[in-house]
């Protein structure tokens, strides 16, 4: 039984450092007045961090395709929920 899909400790430590680095960037960016860009930067950093955790810590990178589908369905569900809600709120 090959369980090669689990990453090495080195990968976990590198992603941890990346995540902390991105946290520092998000804190620093919040102190720069950029208007709407602040929200865009925060969201971009959050999604990047989430991708790192999903792909490496949660092993989605090498997981069974069924798991990819289930994970995507969860996030896609949120996207529909928020997009359609905002389609109403933003166009009143």
């Amino acid at each position: 039984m090959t369980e090669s899909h689990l990453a090495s400790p080195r990968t976990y430590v590198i992603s941890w450092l990346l995540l902390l680095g991105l946290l520092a960037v998000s804190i620093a960016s919040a102190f720069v007045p950029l208007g709407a860009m602040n929200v865009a930067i925060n969201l971009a950093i959050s999604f990047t961090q989430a991708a790192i955790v999903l792909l490496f810590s949660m092993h989605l990178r090498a997981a069974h395709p069924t798991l990819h589908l289930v994970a995507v369905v969860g996030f896609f569900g949120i996207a529909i929920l928020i997009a359609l809600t905002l389609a109403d709120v933003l166009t009143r």
Partner: protein
Amino acid sequence: MASAHSAFAHQFDDARQQREASQLGIWLFLATEILFFGVLFAAYAVTRINHPAAFAAGSRLTNLPLASLNTAVLLTSSLTMALGVHAAQAGARRMTVNWLYATVALGLAFLAIKGIEYGIDFKENLVPGAGFGYDGPGRDQVQLYFYLYYLITMVHAIHVLIGVIAIAVIARIASRGRYSAEYFTPVDVTGLYWHLVDIIWLFVYPSLYLVSRS
């Protein structure tokens, strides 16, 4: 009954198939958790779009240093959890137990720091209601921000608490040598839950604490 034959239940062809079934199960649960928090984020988005200035004002009243420290604590707990799962996969019992208890300690540290933060909020009367301690412009809308602040952070904290309990139970079972390189599914799926709770916080943190700091 920890013989090689009982490494997987009889309805499965092999241990690998059993592991994949467990992973599918936990991922389905995680998808519902994503949707569960999605509703809170939708409520947040609508309220913030309607009251942008109040959200900026409310966000500035929160404790950024403690929240940032907590984010680092939670990210580190995800690292120790990943190392715990890795040790379990290698069949290293002592290492598994140690990493799992390290994760429990970091999870408890997160809850303690959050508790201190709530304590400071309460002292400043930043609780929606008659005695709300903020008297600036948009007082009512800032209360809406704090209503969502408590709802989202408390629901998240409950998830952290459940995770801490689950990991502590798994660590105890692991210390009795019940897991091996062939069977460590409970460690694996508990880890997946913990990482998701971490991911949710990575969205909660900028949404509540970094609305406007400049």
